[in-house]
């Protein structure tokens, strides 16, 4: 029996000393580790605001060597602090553990050393009845408290989440179905009335969304039935006319031709000329102010604009003789401010003018927008506000019926709007959540509607040209989008350098038909036909894809790069390289060169085609090619 309780003498004071020392040590270490731990959370290298703001400042003044040095030092300091701190916490934890183990051992030894032999308390009698009574009482109290607290919390926070989720799911589903119906172009052709009906539906849906959990069973049933109803009545006011119109097709009213889709509807276009010898050059005139915009043609008149930081002008030439008919100075526009800083390769008038045969419209780098009649007299003018665009505004204008379509995506806001060609008043304006884009709008008739198609980081989107309503949108493009889209046969092609080339099947639920990454463009726009897609790159490569499958048919490399966009005319593609040579080849499955004609002057502007003539802006000169 004596073996059970150890009688070995224990040096109590020694162990007590050990316990106290290790205990104090443990407390000290513990405090240090906690302090260090809190510090780690403070020096978070991922979110060092200071360094980030310094880097931003450096971006503004890239040559500030002192600032750069400061960033490097700070960065090193933060990283060092972070990793040292981690090391300290880890080491501290080991020391803490060690000291606690020592303390525990010491205390346990002390406890064993204190010979507390078992004893019996004679007077003590356990009252089991009292215990059970107490226990019953407290178990009941505990249970009741739990129930009461839970119930109070439950009733205070009661939200009927389940029903709300079910309703929300139904509303969301109804919405998607409704939007699908809304956008189906094949819907019945009833005229204006259904639009009103549809509007009502949308309102109803919104009401439904707003109405909170008390959605009664009947209303729920209604929600489910709604889409069916909508399908029956909803239809889109079908656009009965043609776009581009015959008149537009006979002319070359905007950048990249009628509607801006890169197609010229002309015949008998010359293929051979020589700028040096003057062969087939009908006339050549000098323009007053240089710009990169392209000429447009209507009737006998040719329009273009020019600008520098101080001056903005619109010119009108006789397209047959090259005679300057008039020059309109753009000034004294209400709300206008000084020209913003732009890069020299964009200039103050990168956007081409556009005309509808009654007026000609021009836009400049500071947001000045002017409409002039065919005689050069101002019809209206306005300032859209200086666009926050680090290269300079370059999206060209294009006209649909009585609406001038303006893409105005800049850093502060993005929107596309339609202004009345007669008064300049805003007819519609749709906000876009996009970054700056340099691409021009393309207007095409797609099914029963006329769509304005725009490309900008992050999406390619389409708007109803009549109402501005967003018809579809697909996130598929990134970066600083320069090239405009190309459209053919219900498919939209968009691309950008460092992003991708996407072929989008349009519709309410647009889908990516195919993607490619090999040949991408940062300036020139592509051209599409029903069968083929032609991609032109700024480094001199042309590629032809199957429009439907994305199969690469051919690629061809030229010596010079391209900034001008290609134009499809008479089944041939006219493509002007930066050195001034026009490469003419067949829009076909194989690369067949038709001719290469040299202008003898560098050019980055897209040519215009009218009446069997080609008009090219090159440097300060304007050329007319043809007999």
């Amino acid at each position: 029996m004596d073996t059970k309780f150890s009688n070995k003498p224990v040096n109590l004071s020694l162990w007590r000393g050990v316990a106290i020392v290790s205990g104090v040590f443990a407390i000290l270490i513990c405090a240090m580790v906690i302090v260090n731990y809190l510090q780690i959370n403070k020096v978070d290298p991922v979110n060092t605001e200071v360094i980030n703001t310094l880097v931003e400042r450096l971006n503004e003044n890239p040559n500030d060597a002192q600032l750069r040095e400061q960033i490097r030092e700070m960065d090193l300091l933060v990283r060092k602090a972070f990793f040292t701190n981690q090391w300290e916490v880890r080491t501290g934890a080991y020391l803490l553990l060690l000291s606690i183990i020592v303390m525990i051992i010491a205390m346990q030894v002390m406890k064993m050393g204190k010979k507390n032999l078992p004893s019996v308390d004679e007077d003590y009698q356990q009252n089991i009845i009292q215990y059970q009574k107490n226990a019953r009482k407290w178990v009941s109290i505990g249970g009741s408290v739990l129930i009461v607290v839970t119930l109070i919390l439950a009733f205070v926070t009661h939200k009927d989440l389940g029903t709300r989720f079910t309703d929300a799911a139904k509303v969301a589903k109804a919405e998607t179905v409704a939007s699908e119906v809304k956008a189906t172009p094949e819907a019945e052709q009833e005229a204006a009335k259904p639009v009103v009906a549809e509007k009502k539906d949308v309102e109803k849906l919104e009401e439904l969304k707003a109405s909170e959990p008390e959605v009664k069973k009947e209303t729920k049933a209604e929600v489910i039935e709604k889409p069916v109803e909508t399908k029956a009545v909803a239809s889109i006011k079908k656009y009965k006319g043609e776009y581009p119109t015959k008149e537009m097709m006979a002319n070359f009213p905007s950048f990249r031709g009628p509607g801006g889709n890169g197609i010229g509807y002309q015949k008998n276009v010359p293929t051979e000329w020589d700028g040096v010898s003057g062969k087939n050059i009908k006339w050549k005139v000098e323009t007053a102010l240089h710009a990169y915009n392209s000429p447009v043609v209507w009737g006998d008149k040719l329009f273009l604009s020019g600008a520098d930081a101080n001056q903005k002008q619109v010119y009108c030439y006789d397209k047959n003789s090259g005679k300057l008919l008039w020059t309109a100075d753009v000034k004294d526009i209400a709300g206008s401010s000084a020209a913003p800083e732009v890069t020299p390769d964009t200039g103050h008038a990168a956007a081409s003018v556009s005309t509808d045969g009654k007026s000609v419209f021009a836009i400049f780098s500071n947001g000045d927008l002017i409409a002039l009649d065919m005689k050069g007299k101002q019809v209206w003018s306005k300032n859209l506000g200086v666009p926050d665009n680090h290269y300079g505004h370059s999206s060209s204008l294009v006209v649909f019926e009585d609406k001038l379509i303006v893409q105005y995506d800049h850093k502060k806001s993005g929107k596309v709007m339609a202004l009345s060609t007669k008064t300049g008043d805003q007819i519609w304006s749709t906000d876009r959540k996009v970054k700056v884009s340099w691409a021009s709008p393309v207007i095409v008739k797609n099914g029963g509607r006329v769509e304005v198609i725009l490309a900008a980081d992050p999406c390619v989107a389409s708007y109803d040209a009549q109402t501005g309503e967003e018809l579809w949108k697909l996130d598929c493009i990134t970066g600083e989008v320069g090239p405009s889209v190309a459209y053919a046969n219900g498919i939209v092609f968009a691309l950008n350098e460092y992003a991708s080339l996407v072929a989008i099947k349009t519709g309410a639920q647009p889908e990516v038909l195919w993607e490619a990454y090999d040949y991408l463009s940062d300036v020139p726009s592509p051209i599409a036909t029903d069968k083929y897609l032609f991609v032109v790159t700024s480094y001199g490569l042309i590629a032809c894809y199957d429009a439907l499958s994305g199969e690469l048919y051919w690629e061809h490399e030229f010596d010079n790069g391209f900034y001008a966009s290609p134009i499809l005319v008479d089944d041939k593609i006219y493509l002007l390289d930066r050195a001034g040579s026009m490469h003419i080849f067949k829009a076909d499955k194989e690369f067949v060169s038709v001719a290469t004609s040299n202008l003898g002057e560098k050019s980055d502007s897209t040519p215009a085609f009218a009446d069997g003539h080609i008009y090219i802006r090159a440097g300060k000169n304007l050329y007319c090619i043809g007999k």
Partner: protein
Amino acid sequence: MEKKGKKDRRDFINTCFRFAAGASLVGVTGVLAHKTVSGNTLWQIDTTKCTQCGRCATSCVVTPSAVKCIHVYDMCGYCDLCGGYLRPNVKNITTGAENQLCPTGAIKRKYIEDPFFEYEIIEDLCIGCGKCVKGCGAFGNGSLQLQVSHDLCVNCNQCAIARDCPSDAFSRVPADEPYKFSGFKKEKKG
């Protein structure tokens, strides 16, 4: 005698209960027997779901996080202008701290031949914040990907990052396929 009977009864009830408990244990085991995997399960990030929110760096129970950026060299374009290495809008392509995207300087840039550079992740310094992954994915091939580094992962029963992951990208997978890299860019549609 009466006492003994009482004791026997108690024993009998006890035995019955013991068998019932044993049977229920066997039952649970039996039900689960066909749902077992022999090996362990591991946590894995589905890189196609990952949004590089940065929580891998903060939520992991291991410091620094067991989630690391792993470089899939096969997918790398060895670009000079690397979106994973350099901050956006850098003026000079140098290794200066003001140009580096990585907050801990865990990416080593090495010159190989004319326009090409190799990027190596120093695992000890990587904290799994995913900044470089985002940068590379937005601009480049997406060869930098966040994955659980299984030599560091303590394989918690319930991964703390999985709980916090906003895109539900973490899942338990059988141990024989511990890593999953999303393929070439083409997979990432729409």
